[in-house]
């Protein structure tokens, strides 16, 4: 109760502060005593304010939800204490104005989230996910640390402002090194391929409010890092090299397609949502890359369009992914199940949660009336309307990216149809799903907030127009003083011939549905009353839940088409009767969908590290004398070098 309330209150502070900064102007705060030598320095500018507001909004919904969730799930005290701390750290990251403050907040965020992931540490899968997450997030942190230290040394200052002002003097080699290192570090936090492996492990195993915070707010910080360091500070001096944008686009496109492919064959509801996060962050990175590339060719107005798309996808993803994870959490709390093949029939038992997940799934599928639609539409517009006089690179990249986005969206629809249709409709596939109870009021209230945000993104992005306009104006090279796209009742795109009105589309759809229903009723007014008949079960007596489509069978065609990419392990075992080889007693079908990138890339690395560790182990025989000798030797070397 206290923890949830505190989290929501912190979120409200974050939203208020973020919006004040975006509309009011930059704020600064220095706390000299908190860190020795440099002190803590908070500089809030509109870009940071936007991310702060988004994080805060997610925290409000999650905080309210946690009040009921903690009671129902009997969460232990420890994760409840760490939850507000995690939110504070996440609010601190976009506010940080210097390298040290940024690293402090970043590491605090990583450590707090690790504690939260491990809150059910008695289960073996949770511990394995925790180890994976700890190693990858610390490796990412090491890359960021190295990059920021190099940047700070080259820029001659600790504060971001000064580094940005001095960034013209940084040599191209240093700039490229910083770009690659930050892409690695921030990319691993954002769940980009091939550093995504922690995400589908840690997000499902964490308690659901934590999953929502991590998936909707924490991964955004990876994107924020790329925007802040690579686009804002390094891009301050002038246009970035072409290959930066190209690299971002390729990583983004590959992550988006791979993420959605894995999501489309996943049967674990939360794993599916985690892969969908990789997909969406891939789309955001693709949009950022497109903005950088277009900007480096001087096409500022289209670049501003791509940048708006990136920001909108981040915000809408935060809204619908919060809602999706919270709804998945209330399913988990009610049934104890995450496996879609055992769920089903929840629409009748948990109508509120079903509506919530429906709104989230519509948003994630990128269809009109869904939260993700406007962002993806803008992204496609920016990719299609790249300038005619562009080079071969633009001519090659833009159509390929359109293809990747289209494939991602299409597979995303299939994924969400599967998650909603198999998970919530039809008949329950297990006794636990049969006995599901609706979530308590506070959980519903948390979800309703996120659902309201989803509706705003879907129907009235006009409300976000001023916010995004100010943030764009603060991004020097990409937004670059030019007028960004106008998010009014009609979305108008300056420089390209495109306009759309999500509100009118929604209105037209509602009118069309009402008209169709009305006309059908009117046409059927003279027909005899409907009679009730038993369901047609192909002549058998009744239908059982085992006759239904499952998540596995729904995804089977996709799994077959993308066999080379997904490399599933399937195993069909036919048992015959002892009397005759021609009579089949039973058929067992097993399928295991592992992550091929993980198997190909991580397994050799882990094996090599283990081998090397065996060698290093010989230096630790347990003799105190030897250890003392090591210490003396080390001291000697330091003294000789630092002489």
């Amino acid at each position, binding site marked *: 109760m206290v923890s949830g309330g505190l989290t929501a209150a912190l979120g409200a502070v974050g939203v208020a502060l973020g919006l004040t900064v975006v509309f009011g102007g930059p704020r600064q705060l220095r706390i000299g005593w908190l860190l020795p030598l440099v002190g803590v320095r908070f500089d809030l500018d509109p870009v940071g304010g936007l991310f702060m507001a988004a994080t805060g909004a997610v925290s409000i919904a999650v905080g309210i939800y946690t009040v009921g969730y903690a009671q129902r799930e009997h969460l232990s005290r420890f994760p409840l204490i760490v939850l507000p701390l995690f939110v504070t750290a996440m609010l601190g990251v976009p506010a940080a104005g210097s390298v040290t403050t940024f690293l402090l907040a970043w590491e605090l965020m990583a450590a707090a989230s690790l504690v939260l992931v491990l809150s059910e540490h008695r289960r073996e899968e949770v511990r394995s996910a925790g180890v994976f997450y700890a190693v990858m997030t610390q490796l990412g942190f090491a890359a960021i640390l190295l990059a920021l230290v190099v940047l700070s040394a080259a820029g001659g200052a600790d504060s971001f402002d000064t580094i940005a002002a001095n960034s013209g003097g940084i040599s191209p080699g240093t700039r490229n090194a910083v770009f690659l290192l930050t892409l690695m570090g921030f990319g691993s936090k954002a769940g980009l391929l091939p550093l995504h492996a922690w995400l589908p492990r840690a997000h499902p195993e964490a308690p659901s409010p934590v999953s929502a915070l991590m998936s909707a707010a924490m991964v955004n910080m990876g994107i924020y890092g790329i925007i802040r360091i690579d686009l804002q500070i390094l891009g301050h001096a002038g246009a970035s090299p072409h290959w930066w944008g190209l690299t971002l686009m390729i990583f983004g496109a590959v992550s988006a397609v791979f993420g959605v492919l894995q999501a489309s064959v996943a049967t674990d509801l939360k794993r599916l949502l985690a892969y969908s996060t990789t997909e969406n962050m891939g789309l955001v990175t693709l949009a950022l890359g497109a903005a950088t590339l277009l900007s480096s060719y001087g096409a500022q107005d289209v670049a501003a369009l791509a940048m708006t798309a990136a920001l909108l996808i981040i915000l809408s993803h935060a809204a619908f992914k919060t809602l999706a994870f919270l709804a998945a959490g209330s399913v988990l709390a009610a049934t104890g199940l995450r496996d879609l093949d055992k769920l089903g029939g929840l629409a009748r038992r948990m109508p509120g949660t079903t509506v919530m997940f429906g709104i989230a799934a519509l948003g994630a599928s990128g269809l009109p009336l869904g939260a993700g639609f406007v962002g993806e539409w803008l992204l496609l517009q920016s990719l299609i309307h790249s300038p005619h006089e562009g080079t071969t690179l633009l001519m090659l990249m833009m159509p390929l990216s359109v293809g990747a986005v289209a494939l991602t969206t299409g597979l995303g629809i299939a994924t969400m149809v599967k998650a909603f249709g198999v998970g919530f409709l039809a008949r329950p596939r297990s006794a636990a799903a049969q006995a599901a109870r609706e979530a308590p009021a506070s959980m519903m209230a948390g979800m309703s907030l996120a659902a309201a945000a989803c509706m705003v993104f879907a129907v009235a992005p006009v409300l976000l127009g001023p916010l995004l306009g100010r943030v764009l104006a603060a991004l020097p090279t990409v937004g670059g003083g030019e007028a960004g796209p106008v998010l009014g009742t009609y979305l108008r795109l300056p420089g390209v011939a495109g306009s759309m009105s999500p509100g009118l589309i929604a209105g037209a759809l509602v009118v069309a549905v009402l008209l169709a229903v009305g006309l059908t009723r009117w046409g059927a007014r003279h027909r005899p009353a409907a009679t009730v*008949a*038993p369901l*047609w*079960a192909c*002549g*058998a*007596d009744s239908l059982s839940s085992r006759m239904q489509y499952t998540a596995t069978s729904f995804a089977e065609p996709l799994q077959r088409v993308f066999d080379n990419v997904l490399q599933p392990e399937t195993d069909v075992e036919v048992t015959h009767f002892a009397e005759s080889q021609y009579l089949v007693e039973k058929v067992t079908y097993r399928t295991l969908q592992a992550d091929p990138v993980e198997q190909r890339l991580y397994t050799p690395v882990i094996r090599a590290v283990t081998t090397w560790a065996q060698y290093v182990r010989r230096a630790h025989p347990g003799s105190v004398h030897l250890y003392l000798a090591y210490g003396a030797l080390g001291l000697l070397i330091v003294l000789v070098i630092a002489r």
Partner: protein
Amino acid sequence: MSWIGKIRRVGRIVEPAPPLPAFAPMTTSATSATSATSATEPGSIDAVVPPTGVTGSLQLRHVDCGSCNGCELEITSAFSSVYDAEQFGARIVASPRHADGLITTGVVTHNMHQPLLNTLNAVPEPRLVIAVGDCAINGGAFKQGYGVVGSVADVIPVDVGVPGCPPTPHQIIAALRTVTGR
């Protein structure tokens, strides 16, 4: 756009349909037929009213109640491109919910007894049952079998019977045409 004009000028080219059959299909098997509508004089066209009241259209769901598959082969032939029962308005459909009636073959076995009743109940009324082959009409060669409940006519009311073991596609089509009226 000249192809639209051409389509209109040429019109449909099909083989002219043979005249409506001049015999009643139930003449040899009136023993066990229960429905009154099919009992007619020899030499006249059977006066079965199409179940929907619309001539020229009959959607049928096929139920194999325990047939030796001889009748299935002949029904397949009747709906093949050689005999083309569809040109007379009869079609086999996949679900009884889409059907105007059943086309049944074989004796009713114990295993297929309840499924046959379920399928019949799933067909919306008014509906029609066509029994194809001697087994469906009076038990035929399997009449005394240990797993046999009886003929289709013993279990559900049959409107049209097509005698023969198995009946030829011509006979099946002739019976269907008495219902479709084409």
